[in-house]
């Protein structure tokens, strides 16, 4: 009787614990993709890309993991268990750039290669940080998106966030640097919607009223681009004024369908997860990270590191009618 009960109890506990594979193949390279929290569409998409990379490389065992909520403490517990498993590499999108440093330093001391992607970790906590894109690439992309649909040139206007938004100002500055590559395209005005839906909407209306020949509105902000597309739709100028810039597929799907926006751009989470695993694999293979170094990202090309050992993956990814349905449910 006594033994039976103890056994029962032990079995009950065991059934909870024994899930998941016990023995892992030791000759594979084990790369952990750690995300801010499980169950977020953007990161599930990144995991899809990571799996693609693992399949392409062949000898990689991918561990996709993360805490249940977006806390640094949760990620530290995950990191500690990965250190304990002696994984070969950790690729992390950090919930906190500073708080993870002690844990990731420990991982590096024990021979684990650490890179951050998407949201970075302070340099002492990782070997490489992978940015989805870079300011010059984004600046070029937003004007290219408009120019691609204006073969004969035309007037375009910029609807930005606030006049003090560092990101947007940098991108517009970078855009102005490459204007000579797009002859015939003229930026007639730059207005600020303050990242408020109603103000952005009114500013877009104002642009169309003052510039009757306006052919495109470039909104390098996810709030502005949706508001501008709505304003164009409401003014009955779909097909006449093309709205483009940076937006989220889930919010822009309707406007792509209606034609108010022919295309827009944002980072592609699948490519990001893919590149992160490729970079981690390259480091495990013996590649050296450091300022000026070049690392391989498989089909995404090569990553050149700057003075902070950071690099930009690629141009922002273009979303249009051909692929919006694949992404609108993801993020």
């Amino acid at each position, binding site marked *: 009787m006594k033994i039976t009960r103890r056994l029962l109890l032990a079995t009950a506990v065991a059934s909870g614990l024994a899930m998941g594979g016990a023995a892992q193949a030791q000759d594979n390279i084990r790369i952990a993709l750690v995300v801010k929290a499980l169950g977020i569409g953007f990161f599930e998409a990144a995991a899809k890309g990571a799996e693609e990379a693992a399949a392409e490389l062949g000898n990689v065992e991918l561990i996709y993991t993360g805490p249940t909520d977006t806390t640094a403490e949760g990620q530290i517990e995950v990191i500690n268990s990965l250190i304990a498993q002696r994984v070969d590499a950790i690729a992390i999108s950090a919930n906190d750039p*500073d708080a993870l440093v002690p844990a990731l330093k420990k991982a590096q001391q024990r021979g684990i290669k650490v890179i951050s992607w998407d949201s970075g970790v302070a340099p002492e906590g990782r070997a490489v940080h992978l940015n989805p894109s870079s300011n010059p690439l984004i600046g070029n992309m937003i004007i290219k998106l408009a120019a691609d649909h204006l073969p004969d040139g035309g007037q375009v206007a910029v609807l930005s966030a606030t006049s003090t938004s560092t990101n947007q100002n940098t991108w517009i500055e970078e855009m102005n640097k490459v204007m000579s590559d797009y002859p015939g395209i003229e930026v007639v005005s730059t207005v600020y919607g303050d990242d408020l839906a109603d103000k952005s909407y009114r500013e877009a209306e104002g642009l169309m009223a003052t510039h009757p020949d306006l052919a495109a509105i470039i909104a390098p902000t996810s709030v502005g681009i949706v508001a501008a597309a709505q304003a164009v739709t409401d003014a009955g100028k779909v097909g006449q004024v093309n709205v483009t810039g940076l937006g989220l597929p889930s919010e822009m799907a309707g406007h792509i369908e209606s034609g108010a926006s022919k295309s827009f751009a944002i980072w592609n989470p699948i490519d990001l997860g893919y590149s992160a695993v490729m970079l981690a694999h390259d480091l495990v293979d013996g590649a050296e990270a450091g300022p000026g170094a070049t690392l391989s990202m498989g089909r995404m090309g090569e990553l050149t590191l700057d003075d902070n050992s950071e690099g930009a993956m690629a141009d922002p990814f273009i979303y249009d009618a051909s692929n919006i349905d694949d992404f609108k449910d993801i993020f």
Partner: protein
Amino acid sequence: MNTQARVIPHRANGRLRRIFGSWEALLVVIAIAIFFINTQASPYFLDPWNLSDATFNFTEKAMIAFAMALLIVSGEIDLSVASIIALASTAMGFALQLGAGTPVLVLVGLGTGLLCGAFNGLLVARLGLPSIVVTIGTLSLFRGIAYIVLGDQAYSGYPTSFAYFGQGYVWWVITFEMVLFVATAVVFYVLLHRTGFGRAVYGIGNNPTAALFSGIRVPRVKFLLFLMTGVMSGVAAICLTSRLGSTRPSIGFGWELEIVTMVVLGGINILGGSGTIPGVVLAAIIMGLVTFGFGLLNVPGIVMSIFIGLLLISVIALPRVFGSFAGLHRKR
């Protein structure tokens, strides 16, 4: 008045009790079982350094759980503990910006915990407000202040000597936090089980009116218990801040529920009046082992929460189920 409600047995009754001896013995069996399963499930489990790293999963929470255990035995509860961590950590970060060194930072952390505990204690013990309502309020209040001060910013750049509390090793794999965990366990064990103060806590939890009439200064004892819980939250804040090396207002978010779970799993009656510190120590170790074991198998965190929930419900339900079987037996 509500003595009728206190029928949930805190110890295994009847036959089960004879088998396992006590709640603590049951927890020991569970802990050994989980330890054994972990050694079988993962080849990485039985490594001194890995086990040492794993203790961080529970040491800070357990330090608060000891103080919380006394509070719950007395029939009160403090749900603001995780928010006290956030506020104490923010206060330390603020002091750091003003150029404070490690000793001052420690004092600021402990002092903030003490003040928060005193605030809770005054509202509950002096004004007679229900502690669950008061501390739900201060749960929002304390963390709210941290958010106002910090917003989306962070304090970092703590001195190297400060890192010892959360990252330092006393000897080989024995961390400073482990030593602190054992020391606080001993202190609270002596306090609850070997002093008149501890007997007063049990007395209040079983029957506050009777305790009052037998000469126990009930409000004073309760005030002191809130003070202790506040200070222990300050201690945990120092350890956690030191371990993270930075402060954000979201620090320790959601810990209050894990701490209460630890206390209840440890056999402390949630309605007050019974339970022991060794039980809480065992519960802390069990939760640490489960978290680490699941982590090694890369089981998603949500499955861990489900398991802890089931474990909690079953350990509460088991004595009752077996108790009623035993009761039927006697009737026949």
